């Protein structure tokens, strides 16, 4: 796990110097079916390394990600690499260089693996080579319907779809959710590898993974940002974790899964 040892190799110094963020979210609010799910959220993502977006289940992490790319109605300012993107439709935001790996994978189950990947290609020269090296498994299953893959394999497809193109930032939503420990390790390794070339905003419940990968952390509570700063600092403060995440520093979270599913259901 060597790449994870220094997740922010390109950030000059750890001090909060004048680094221009790649993605800035300013007073972002969002509604789903009339319900306020994100309220006045502001934070930024530095141009390298992995930034973790943390908070209890149902606190609006997924909604924040979706609001950034316009999948749900939102207001507020979102700036990508100096350009405002909050008025753009989703497809144009993605085309500007945002890679999105949604919660629950969202592979097209009735399309083959190859079709899923081909659909995601938007660069003139998509990096098929890289994807084949990262996920040799997928090459072997190119003709298989994505719906018949295991959860881990579907996550590989979902990651591969984002990594095929050159992006300015990756938004990765709970990539290890529901995966076996061995697969969690693989996913983490892939993310660490990807983070060498592209900054990542990562929603992750598994604090072990966060500890391993994230340089910075943004913590949400009640739809608002309650803490920002280096991830390590936050993870070492048991009281903060208890207060904002409602868990002790437990490597196996997910007890709250049922209510999580209910929120998802309500949102759809």
């Amino acid at each position, binding site marked *: 796990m060597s790449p994870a040892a220094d997740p922010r190799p390109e950030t000059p110094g750890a001090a909060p110097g004048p680094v221009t963020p790649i993605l800035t979210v300013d007073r972002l*609010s969002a*509604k789903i*079916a*009339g319900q*306020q799910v994100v309220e006045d959220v502001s934070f930024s993502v530095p141009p390298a390394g992995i930034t973790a977006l943390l908070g209890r289940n149902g*606190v609006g992490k997924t909604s924040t990600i979706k609001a950034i790319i316009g999948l749900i109605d939102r207001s507020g300012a979102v700036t990508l690499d100096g350009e405002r993107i909050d008025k753009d439709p989703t497809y144009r935001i993605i085309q500007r260089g945002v890679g999105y790996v949604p919660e629950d994978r969202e592979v097209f189950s009735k399309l083959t693996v190859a079709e899923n990947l081909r659909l995601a290609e938007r660069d003139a020269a998509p990096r098929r080579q890289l994807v084949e090296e990262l996920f040799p498994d997928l090459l072997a299953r190119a003709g298989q319907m994505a719906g018949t893959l295991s959860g881990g394999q579907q996550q590989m497809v979902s990651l591969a779809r984002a990594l095929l193109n050159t992006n300015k930032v990756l938004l990765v939503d709970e990539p290890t959710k529901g995966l076996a420990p061995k697969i969690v390790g693989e996913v983490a390794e892939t993310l660490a590898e990807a983070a060498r070339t592209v900054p990542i905003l990562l929603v992750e419940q598994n604090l072990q993974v966060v500890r391993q990968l994230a340089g910075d952390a943004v913590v949400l509570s*009640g*739809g608002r940002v309650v803490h920002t700063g280096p991830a390590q600092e936050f993870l070492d403060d048991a009281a903060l974790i208890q207060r904002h995440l409602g868990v002790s520093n437990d490597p196996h979270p997910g007890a709250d899964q049922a*209510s999580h599913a209910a929120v998802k259901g*309500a949102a759809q």
Partner: protein
Amino acid sequence: MTTTGSNTETTTGGDAGTTAGTGAVRRSRRQGATHDDGARTAGTPGAGRGRGGRPVTGRRIAGWAAGLAGVLLLVLLPLLNLSLPGILPGPSYTPGSLQLLAMSMLMAAAALTYHLLLGVAGLLSFGHALYFGAGVYGLAIILKNLEIPLLPAMGLTLLIVIVLAHVVGSISLRVGGIPFAMVTLAFAQAGSVIVGRNPDGRTGGDEGLTLRTDNLPEALVGVVNTRNLYWLALAVLVVVFIIVSWVQSSRAGHTAAAVRENELRVRVLGLQPYLVKLLIFVVSAILVGVIGMVFLLLQSGAVPRAISSDLTITLLVMVVLGGVGSRWGAVIGGVFYTILDQRLTALANSEAVKGLPDILRVPLSEPLFILGTLFILVVLFLPGGIAGTAERLAQRRRGRAGNGTTETPREILEDAA
């Protein structure tokens, strides 16, 4: 959702009583969302609370007073000699005018029953004409074939409507949204086809049935008694309005509105969305069935159009033109549509239109072309319909914004999807 942020308050259906009532539900939902996740999943206890703490505002009283005055005027109308050129074909006491007014009031009442489906329960039904037609044809066939007086005949017809509504409702409510629309359409079409096929010569096929008057009270028969039928239609409209208001503000009405907004949440609260929707569906069907029976008396006959999907679509158009989610909107839409349709038909047959070049004559001689186009324009540009637009203008004049808890017609339509 069509608007972002907090500026959703300006468009409302002009229905202060209702919006205050359902507002309680909606308010609690919005507040709940700002708390933590628990509120969003399980809902606040107030969601199905019903009429708790509804404010009786001055506007509400003023609304009922205006309604009462209007009803009084309508009661007296057959005794007066009012002329409304361009709207009524003759002075207000003439049978022609009374017939048109009675028809528009029945259509307004029918539109109100459709409002109960769409505006309250969020059910986009394309089969409402089935129950209207069952009222019309049921009563016509019973009066023709059985030697019983009017009221028992109506009771028998009502029984048929109730059974029919339960059967069709319980099946079609297994699906929601657009599939529900398609399924109700299919059932209504079956009814329409049966009438068209004319089994055993019972329904008269394309020709329809003439009302057999042998067992009817004298006072309801013949052109001279049009004003009695007019009063009957007025009574139907008033009673339907009161019942619809009552259902809407009842526990069932509030639960239905809550179901429309968030079915999962109501289910979490342990209520049964299916049964509430079925209840609203059946009540709405019963009311429109009764309206159909009075329609039969007014028209002195049953025509296939009374059970066709065209009629359902007409009701939907009335509700949308008037303003989705508003009772007054449904009434205004029903009256407006009926009178406009009648006037456009008169226009189409006028010499002035006949003399026009084809490119103008063809569209102007088709009332439905004009009404259809008008409908499209209202959907695209005036989402609150007549009532919503009037309300918006009134608010602008009063120079104040409405309260933020009312639901816009667009939100109601989104809930139905």
